[in-house]
């Protein structure tokens, strides 16, 4: 029993070491009963933020939505989505993963720069 658990952990560790989100991670995305490794959850939250950043940047630029307030709106929306995912959908105990701060800051800076880049580019190309 102990060997099976350690073999499973080794496999998860190797899958994560590759740095890719493995098929098992994708299968776990909506599995409420799945147990999460800190690194796997961190990676998933990172990519959720990047996808939200890209979508918001493209949308905000296309409409266009202008003004610094929309940067704040993006931060609230993306943080809300990330929080909703890990706290409400997955119902993870945030203390096991370093607290709310640790989970909410996963991929934050990269997502802000990606959002600003997409927003600026679409706005510049579509409206001038």
């Amino acid at each position: 029993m102990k060997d099976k658990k350690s073999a499973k952990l080794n496999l998860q560790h190797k899958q994560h070491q590759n740095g890719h989100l493995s098929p098992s991670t994708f299968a776990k995305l909506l599995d409420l009963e799945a147990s999460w490794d800190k690194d796997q959850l961190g990676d998933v939250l990172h990519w959720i933020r990047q996808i939200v950043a890209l979508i918001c940047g493209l949308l905000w630029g296309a409409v266009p939505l202008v003004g610094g307030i929309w940067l704040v709106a993006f931060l609230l929306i993306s943080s809300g989505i990330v929080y909703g995912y890990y706290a409400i959908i997955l119902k993870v105990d945030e203390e096991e993963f370093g607290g709310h701060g640790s989970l909410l800051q996963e991929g934050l800076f990269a997502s802000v720069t990606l959002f600003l880049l997409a927003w600026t580019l679409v706005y510049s190309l579509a409206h001038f």
Partner: protein
Amino acid sequence: MASPFSSFKYSDGLTVVGISICTAVVCEAISWLLIYRTTSYKSLKSSIDRASKKLETMKTDSTVTAAPKKSKTKKIDRVETSLKESSRDLSLFKLKSGAVVALVLFVVFGFLNNLFEGKAVAKLPFVPIRIVQKMSHRGLNGDDMTDCSMAFLYFLCSISIRTNLQKFLGFAPPRGAAGASLFQIPDAAKTN
């Protein structure tokens, strides 16, 4: 034959993004060649991963018990020190090869600067705060703070593209190493 993007007023922004993407790929290729494929890096990374996971487990176990044993606390300190040492070694190892990447980035920035000096490559959909304006309006004439200089766009590209490329390729630094710095001196008393 005219480029399909030449009709856009700010098509230079796309040039900056394109060059940033190519630079990010080249930098990661150099990093892979000099750092990531070496056995030293792989063994350091796996020892950091192992140590940080072990530390997490030990800390979780010690918070469950009301009064953790002195020996357990000493063990935690030893693993922490070992983790900090490995993280410092990893930083030092990457520093040597990082100099080559820094040189590439510097050369590309210089090239882009010559190409787009004094020219707005994009239009910002917001007015940046004063401290950001120093970069976003760098080298541009006029008072319109929504004009975006190459430097700011390049900065946005570099951070977003390189970070996500590293993450995608699995070259992002291990989470356990995040807290340790190059100049952190391990506590000798704790090691003993």
